[in-house]
């Protein structure tokens, strides 16, 4: 292809957007609306998943040891626990520390006067935090088999609930995103079909003159990709703005919820949302124009 032809094709693609401004606007609006819904849903889902993950990270298993277990053995067991893949963090709490943490709030600052000795002797323990709460049962089974382990405290109800919620959120989000995308492709391809059908005569003229399929199709495809990119840029900008507003609103109006509702930084959400939306927009524009023009090429 000659460079002048390449520039002509690119120029025609851009000019076509303005020539067919109503069709372009309709296409951009459709793509924007669909990708806005997609982006909004994606943002809610990733934040919700982040909240569940935070909750999961707070779920701990506490491991107590037999009285005859030495400090050195406890350290060895601690090292073994740390090596497990499902473990994110292990914290050793000595009996003295456990007493010093618990007593002031539950007995009073003068607990030393009441109890001369630490009544929690023998309650040295490890607090184990999991990377994936659904693996709690596996870890407990393994811990039960470790010599020297006396008791394991855990909350199966919390772990099971979080695991269940996680699975439901995953299924529902995949389902809703699939439906949203299917509806988007349907709506957008319809808009593109109408837009290109109006220009059927133009395509016919090109073909009669001796234009190759590539020459006929290229400006339409460029136009489709540009419309797709503009259509995906608008909802991204809107979500970016809304995200900050919502975060600020929640922090100001519901300060009590800020511990529970930990928002992901906008950069982290957009690191995935931005490329997905742009690729979806450009991809839908490309496919819509490519397929629709093909129908009219058989002249």
């Amino acid at each position, binding site marked *: 292809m000659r460079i002048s*032809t390449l520039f002509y094709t690119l120029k025609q693609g851009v000019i076509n957007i303005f020539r067919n401004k109503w069709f372009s606007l309709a296409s951009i609006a459709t793509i924007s609306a669909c990708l806005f819904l997609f982006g909004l849903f994606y943002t809610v889902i990733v934040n919700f998943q982040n909240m569940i993950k935070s909750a999961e990270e707070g779920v701990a298993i506490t491991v107590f040891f037999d009285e005859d277990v030495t400090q050195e053995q406890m350290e060895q067991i601690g090292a073994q626990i740390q090596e497990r893949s499902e473990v994110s963090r292990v914290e050793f709490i000595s009996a003295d520390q456990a007493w010093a943490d618990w007593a002031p709030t539950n007995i009073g600052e003068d607990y030393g006067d009441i109890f001369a000795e630490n009544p929690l002797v023998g309650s040295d323990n490890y607090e184990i935090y999991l990377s994936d709460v659904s693996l709690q049962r596996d870890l407990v089974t393994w811990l039960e088999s470790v010599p020297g382990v006396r008791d394991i405290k855990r909350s199966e109800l919390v772990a099971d609930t979080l695991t269940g919620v996680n699975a439901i959120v995953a299924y529902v989000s995949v389902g809703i995103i699939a439906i949203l995308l299917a509806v988007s492709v349907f709506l957008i391809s319809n808009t593109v079909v109408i837009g290109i059908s109006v220009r059927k005569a133009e395509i016919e*003229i090109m*073909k009669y*003159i*001796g*234009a*190759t399929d590539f*020459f006929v199709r290229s400006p339409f495809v460029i136009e489709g990709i540009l419309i797709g990119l503009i259509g995906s840029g608008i909802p991204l900008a809107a979500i970016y703005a809304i995200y900050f507003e919502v975060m600020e609103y929640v922090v100001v109006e519901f300060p009590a919820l800020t511990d529970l509702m930990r928002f992901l930084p906008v950069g982290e959400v957009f690191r995935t949302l931005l490329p997905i939306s742009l690729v979806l927009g450009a991809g839908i524009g490309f496919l819509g124009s490519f397929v629709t023009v093909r129908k009219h090429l058989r002249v």
Partner: protein
Amino acid sequence: MIFNNKKKKKKKDSSDAVILLDKVSKSYSSGSPALDNVSLSIKKGEFVFIVGDSGSGKSTLIKLLLRELTPTSGRVVVNGYDMDRLRRRQVPKFRRNLGIVFQDFRLLNDRNVYENVAFAQRVVQTPTKEIRKNVPKALAVVGLAGKYKAKTKQLSGGEQQRVALARALVNEPPILLADEPTGNLDPKNSWEIMKLLERINEEKGTTILVVTHNREIVNAMQKRVITMKKGVIISDEEKGGYIDED
């Protein structure tokens, strides 16, 4: 491949025919055949009218020559290209041998006169420098050199058909097909377009095939006239006239 095909055909068809139909039939899925065993030869530089009523097979003939359709049987050869052997992706290159003028002009109404004519050159990837030389020349031939900036909708029907003619000629095709070129024009403009076609035929040696219903023009111009009826050629006369079927 096209070149080989062309060479082979030229060798085989020793005559200087640029359009050759050999026992061509075309049937659609329902009804009687649109073309029935038609044979026809048009030599280089000829000016030919194809006349006939609606349903006589004229449009099918044009579509076969444009390779928009392929024959059900028989052979169609245009400027050395055997339509039967032509692959779909070779069609664009083949069509660059033809200039085409339609009854409804088929201009790109969102572009000006210059762009409409230049468009035909862009399709064949002519360098921009050449386009700048060739388009004004083609517009001058059809008498529209001064209107190159005008939008096509600002032009009269006759002027629009001239733009279409300039677009058909700018690539200097050896064959020009005109499908009812005066169908939407008044008598004065019709005559002007026909005189223009005759001049192009005489000066450039372009083979011209005109499908028309215009009895006065056919009778006055005294060219070869092929008359069709119900898919069959019923008359083929040098310096012929419009045959009245009543």
